[in-house]
């Protein structure tokens, strides 16, 4: 079949909201974009375990520790769902992990910021997971079947993450003066990086956007960011805290909150590897991977030995 016909069948399916499945024909650029996006998303889940893992041993109570462990476990699971979805497109797990560990593949820049106080666990859950969820809810309807199914599973589990984050801050916001200050400080530090999670402004893009045409994405960066600001600007009132933006103001004409300009220089700096924790995160991942190598080898050797023995018994 000529390429143009295959492309037409493909686009017709997308337009009719029929999901694309692994063995279906798809344009090479669709495959590559999905591999890149899904694997970056997976890497973000795995690297995202590090800033929170930092607080497991220092959680203020057994209850908070159990919750934090459960959350970090979920993130490992989310990484795995996503790696599996990417593998259906023909890439391998080793390739993706190599790309992450050599710095070729990216992950969400938000995880290159440090978690300095316990209140950061609340702010990460509320703001960072809150921003991620908006993106992920949209992705439940993405056109590639395995990615959409992974997202449905992830969204089901993710809402506890955001709720526990808000509740952590809520408790602090009703605490001592020191705890209140810690709560406000965490919000101040995480607000702008959270807004950056949605990526550059739509106006930065000059080309027609295939991601939208192919329904990999269904909303633009600015749409999602606005949705996030509107949501958080209301929720912060319930904490009795403020967001660190003097330009944040309800705009009745637009029916949205107006907000200040993001520091894009900082955004690109962190993306390019110069954020506060980029090196530390990669070092931690490489160390874990290298120190786990003997376990992976031993497990494989044991499995093979067992198989040989069983084979001999049968013979």
């Amino acid at each position, binding site marked *: 079949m000529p390429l143009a016909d295959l492309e037409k069948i493909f686009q017709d399916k997308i337009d009719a909201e029929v999901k694309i499945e692994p063995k279906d024909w798809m344009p090479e650029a669709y495959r590559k974009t999905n591999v890149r996006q899904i694997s970056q998303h997976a890497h973000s889940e795995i690297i995202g375990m590090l800033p929170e893992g930092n607080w497991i041993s220092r959680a203020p109570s057994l209850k908070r520790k159990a919750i934090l462990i459960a959350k970090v476990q979920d993130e490992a699971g989310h990484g795995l769902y996503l790696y599996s979805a990417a593998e259906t497109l023909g890439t391998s797990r080793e390739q993706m992990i190599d790309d992450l560990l050599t710095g070729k593949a990216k992950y969400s820049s938000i995880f290159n910021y440090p978690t300095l106080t316990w209140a950061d666990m609340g702010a990460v859950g509320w703001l960072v997971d809150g921003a991620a969820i908006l993106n992920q809810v949209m992705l439940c309807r993405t056109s590639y079947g395995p990615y959409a199914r992974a997202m449905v599973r992830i969204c089901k589990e993710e809402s506890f993450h955001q709720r526990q984050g808000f509740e952590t801050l809520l408790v602090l916001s009703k605490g001592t003066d020191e705890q209140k200050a810690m709560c406000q400080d965490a919000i101040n530090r995480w607000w702008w990086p959270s807004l950056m999670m949605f990526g*550059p402004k739509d106006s930065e893009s000059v080309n027609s956007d295939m991601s939208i045409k192919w329904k990999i994405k269904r909303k633009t960066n600015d749409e999602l960011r606005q949705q996030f600001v509107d949501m958080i600007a209301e929720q912060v009132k319930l904490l009795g805290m403020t967001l660190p933006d003097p330009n944040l103001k309800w705009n009745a004409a637009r029916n949205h909150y107006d907000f200040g300009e993001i520091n894009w220089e900082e955004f690109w700096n962190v*993306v390019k590897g110069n954020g506060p924790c980029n090196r530390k995160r990669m070092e931690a991942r490489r160390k874990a991977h290298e120190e786990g190598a003997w376990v992976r080898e031993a497990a494989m050797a044991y499995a093979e030995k067992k198989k040989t023995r069983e084979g001999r018994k049968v013979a």
Partner: protein
Amino acid sequence: MNIQIRKFYYGDIPEDAGGSGSSAQQPVTNGTAWPLWEVFIRSKQGLDHKHAGSLHAADAAMAIENARDVYTRRQEGVSIWVVESKYIHASNPDEAESFYEPAADKVYRHPSFYDLPDEVKHM
């Protein structure tokens, strides 16, 4: 088809915009990859096992334990099947039209094909 995707969404940063990785860093995985397994979960007694996803494991016992940790953290299952992915054979979607064609013109296989008087009960 010359396609350029220029938007930088969350989780979608193009390599050219992100700066390249250090070339001094050598790949670290070394060919001891565990095989891929497909996981099927029975969510409760009386229901079918349903495909849940896939994972890597050295052997079947590890695949079942990993599947428990990954796919049933919130009591989503009472039984797990795993099968190595290489043993799954699938129909070809490119041939779907001709492959399923024989069923297309046999409406008489459905009960609604038969017009019966209203007086007929229990049928």
